[in-house]
C-alpha cells in the first residue's frame, strides 16, 4: 500500500487561525504606538496648564488683571499646533454665588492629534486674602 502525503485540513485551519491572530495583533501595534504618543502629549499639556496656575497664584490679588493672555511655554512646541491661553475674570455667580471677592482662572491648552483637536482645561479660583496672598 502506498502512503499518501499532503497537508491535512486541520493543519490548514490551524495555519489560517494563527495567521489571522497575528495579523490582528500586529495590525493593532501602530494604533497602540499612536496612543502612547497621545498619552505623552496629554501629560505635557497638563504640566503646562498646572505651571500656569502656579505662576498666577504667586501674583498678588490686586495685580491680577482681568483678560486673556497667551501661554508662553517652550514645551508647547512638543505639541502639534500647540497653543494655550489663560483667562482671568471676575468670578461669576454660577461659581461664586455668595458674592465672594475672587477671580476665576481658566487655563486652556489645545493641540492637534492625528484625529481631531484635543483640549485640556483647568479651572480654579484666586481670592483676596486667599492662598499665597
Amino acid at each position, binding site marked *: 500500500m502506498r502512503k499518501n*502525503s499532503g497537508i491535512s485540513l486541520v*493543519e490548514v485551519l*490551524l*495555519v489560517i487561525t*494563527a495567521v489571522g*491572530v*497575528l495579523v490582528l*495583533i*500586529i495590525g*493593532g*501595534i501602530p*494604533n*497602540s*504606538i499612536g*496612543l*502612547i504618543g*497621545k*498619552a*505623552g502629549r*496629554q*501629560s505635557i499639556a*497638563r504640566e503646562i*496648564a*498646572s505651571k500656569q*496656575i502656579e505662576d498666577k497664584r504667586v501674583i498678588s490679588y490686586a495685580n491680577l488683571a482681568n483678560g486673556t493672555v497667551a501661554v508662553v511655554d517652550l514645551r508647547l512646541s512638543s505639541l502639534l499646533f500647540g497653543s494655550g491661553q489663560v483667562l482671568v475674570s471676575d468670578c461669576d455667580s454660577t*461659581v*461664586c454665588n*455668595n*458674592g*465672594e*471677592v*475672587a477671580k476665576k482662572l481658566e487655563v486652556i491648552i489645545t493641540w492637534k492629534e492625528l484625529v481631531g483637536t484635543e483640549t*485640556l*482645561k*483647568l*479651572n*480654579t*479660583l*484666586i*481670592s*483676596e*486674602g*486667599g*492662598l499665597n496672598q
Partner: protein
Amino acid sequence: MNYTLIMRQPGQILLILLLVMAIGLGVGISVIQRSVTNISTASKVEQSSRAFSAAEAAIEKALQGSCTGGPCVSFDNLATASIQGGELLPYPGEALEYPPISKESVAQFWLADPSTLISTCGNCSINVYWGNATTSPGDVDPALEVTVISGLAPYSATKYFLDKQASIRNNGFDSATITCPPPAPIATYYGSIRSFFCSKTISLSGVTSPILLRARILYSNADQPIAVAPVSPYSLPSQAKIITSTGQAGSSKRTVQLFTEDKVVPFFFDFAIFSAGDISK
C-alpha cells in the same frame, strides 16, 4: 542514504509556526498593554489635576467664609469640590497641634485672645509636645526652643531650651524636666491618639498675662509636629482653622488640607532687636 529520515518530518513547520506566533503575540500584546496603561495613566493624571484645581478653589471660597461645609465648587470642566472642617480650633480644653514644621521654622500658639490680648490664664500650666514618636533612620532626635511672651508693655520673653540628648550634645539644654516619651498620647484634630517624642509641662504661675508661645525645632532635619495642650481648667483661645477640601473630576479625587492661623508673627521675630529709642553703637 536514508532520505526517509531527512525528508519526512511532518509537523515541523507547525512547530515553527507556533514559535513565530508566540513571539508575535508576546510583542504585540506587550505594546498594546503599554499603550492601554499609558492612556489610562494620562487620563487619570489629567482628572487629578482638574480635581486638585477644584480643591484649591474650594479652599479659596472657604477662606472667604462663603463655604462652611459640603459641596462648594462646580466648574464647567466637570470638576467639583467640597469642604470639611473650617471651624475654629482648638475646642475648649483641647490641645492644638501644628502641622509638622521643618528645622528653624516656628510654630506659634496664642495663649491669649489674638484680638484683645486678654489672657484667661491665671496661674495656669500648659503641656508642650514635640517630635515624631520615633526618629527616622538617618535623622537625629529633635530639640525644642520655646519662647513664652508675656506682659503688656513692657513685654517679657522667657525661653526654654529642651533636649533629650543634652548631655551628649553638651549644649546646656534642659533634659531633666522633660518626659520622653510623654506619659500618655493626647487627642488633637489630627487624631484621638497622638504620640510625640517628648513633652514638658510649663507652669505659667506668676507669669503676668501670657500672650504667645513660639516653638522652634532644632537639630532634626525631618519635619516634626508640635502641640500645646492646656492643663485643666485652662483652655487655649480659639486661634486656628483646619480646612479640608476634596476635589473630584472623573474617577480621581484630590484632597487639600489647609492650616490657617490668625496674626502669626514672622519667623525672624525672635531674632529682631526691639528698642523703645534709637540704638547707638
